[in-house]
């Protein structure tokens, strides 16, 4: 029996060039708020980079800036050395054709079936005939374990399945850059392990660059080459290879990685003492 061909592992290849670069980027959705503060980071071509952090620290916003959804307030986001200009529609569409994004809640088209959702980018951007589209869609669905669910409506599948369909859609065109927004949230342990492996294998097989935004530290550390840790209010507090971050002495990094309740990051939103809010006297 012939042995399976060994896929080249891009982690072993020299690839020091930066595909994406954040150069002192600040951003807010309105002039009164700031979601990202002076972020400088770079993401290497062909690698899986994780962006970790608690809820509301600006991780998803970071991905949106890469997609050119919003203009930055200060600094620049560069892809292949070229700054993204959100007013330049032609440049944006050219850039977006190179990327695939998995949304936090799937963002599947609810009026289409599972099959049609995955076929959507193929129909929009290629002239492939129906047979070819069918084959590609079924292969992508097979990769996420949902080939048998191709004919189902979106309303008929669970949240975890929807996420996997969204993953199949994101990889339909084999994009050069894959952005994953919370790919593990809502998945059962089996689906989570399969998805994590799929992200890694896809990256290695296609030579794509992957950015995984998540707060699942262990899952991400198992598959990523490099990681950034963010914290409120939209700042990068640490970055490095997973083993370096695991060994970090920084109390904020340690608290986040180990999920400790006490530490520099407070669980409670700033508030007056509970007794005061409940109208209780301090001596009772």
């Amino acid at each position, binding site marked *: 029996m012939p042995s399976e061909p060994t896929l080249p592992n891009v982690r072993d290849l020299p690839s020091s060039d930066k595909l994406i670069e954040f150069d002192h980027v600040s951003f807010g959705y309105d002039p009164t708020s700031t979601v990202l503060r002076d972020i400088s980071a770079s993401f290497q071509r062909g690698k899986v980079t994780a962006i970790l952090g608690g809820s509301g620290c600006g991780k998803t916003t970071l991905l949106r800036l890469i997609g050119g959804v919003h203009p930055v307030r200060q600094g620049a986001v560069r892809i292949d050395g070229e700054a993204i200009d959100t007013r330049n529609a032609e440049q944006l569409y*050219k850039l977006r054709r190179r990327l695939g994004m998995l*949304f*936090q809640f799937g963002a599947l*088209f*609810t009026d289409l079936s599972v099959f049609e959702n995955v076929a959507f980018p193929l129909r929009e951007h290629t002239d492939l005939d129906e047979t070819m589209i069918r084959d590609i869609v079924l292969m992508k669905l097979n990769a996420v374990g949902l080939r048998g669910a191709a004919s189902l409506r979106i309303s008929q599948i669970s949240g975890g399945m929807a996420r996997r369909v969204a993953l199949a859609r994101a990889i339909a065109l084999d994009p050069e850059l894959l952005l994953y927004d919370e790919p593990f949230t809502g998945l059962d342990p089996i689906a989570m392990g399969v998805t994590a492996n799929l992200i890694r294998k896809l990256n290695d097989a296609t030579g794509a660059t992957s950015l995984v935004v998540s707060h699942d530290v262990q899952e991400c550390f198992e598959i990523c080459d490099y990681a950034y840790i963010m914290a409120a209010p939209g700042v990068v507090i640490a970055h490095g290879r997973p083993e370096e971050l695991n060994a970090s002495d920084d109390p904020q990094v340690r608290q986040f990685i180990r999920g400790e309740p006490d530490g520099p990051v407070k669980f409670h939103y700033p508030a007056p003492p509970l007794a005061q809010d409940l109208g209780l006297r301090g001596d009772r």
Partner: protein
Amino acid sequence: MEWIAALGRFALDILRALGHHAAFFFELLRTLPVSLRRPYFAVAQVHALGNLSLLVILSSGLAVGFVLALQTYYALATYGAADSVGLVVNLSLVRELGPVVTALLFAGRAGTSLTAEIGLMKAGEQLSAMELMAVDPKSRVLAPRFIGGIIAMPLLALLFSAIGILGAYVVAVLLIGLDPGNFWSIMESGVDVRRDLGNGIIKSIVFGVICSFVAVYQGFEAKATPEGVARATTRTVVISSLTVLAMDFVLTALMFSTR
């Protein structure tokens, strides 16, 4: 001084809103040629929007025809002109009630549905997903619905008028007992296809543009929350209805002027 500042703010807000609507409208027009290259999306919308409104349009048209025939008969019988019931009903329907009532019903039925659908697509990040897939949501989602509404409106208005005339026939001829020959022949001689029917169709096309544009605009600009979508849906009905009524007055003055 405070009220002058408030007045200025109000005027600026109105101008800003008008400017935004105009920019959005021209942006939508810009996407139409791209959208028309794949006409099946617009055809699907004509089918969806037409089906959605058909029952309410037909039942309302029939009811309006019944009532109009009765009221007209009561008024005309006093002057011995009861045979003209068919003519008056027909002119009322094709010139005014057909286009206007159809537009109001369309805004309430199909317009709200369009706004809610697009608003929920926005809330579910479907429009963002499309954008990030390098697919323009204005061209792929909004334009086919806009075109579909413009095509569906005159068809629905014609159906409204036709069923209304049938309703009037039932009341005037079958129930009251007017002569059917007079009913149809006076109608035929008094209604001008170009002036009456043609202008009625032009009106309903204009109303189709208004209702469809307001619906897709409100959906696209809705806040991506359940409350935001609910508010946008309400605004669709209010703005569409008021604009249709105002535009009807302008169009009537322009189309049916005797000078």
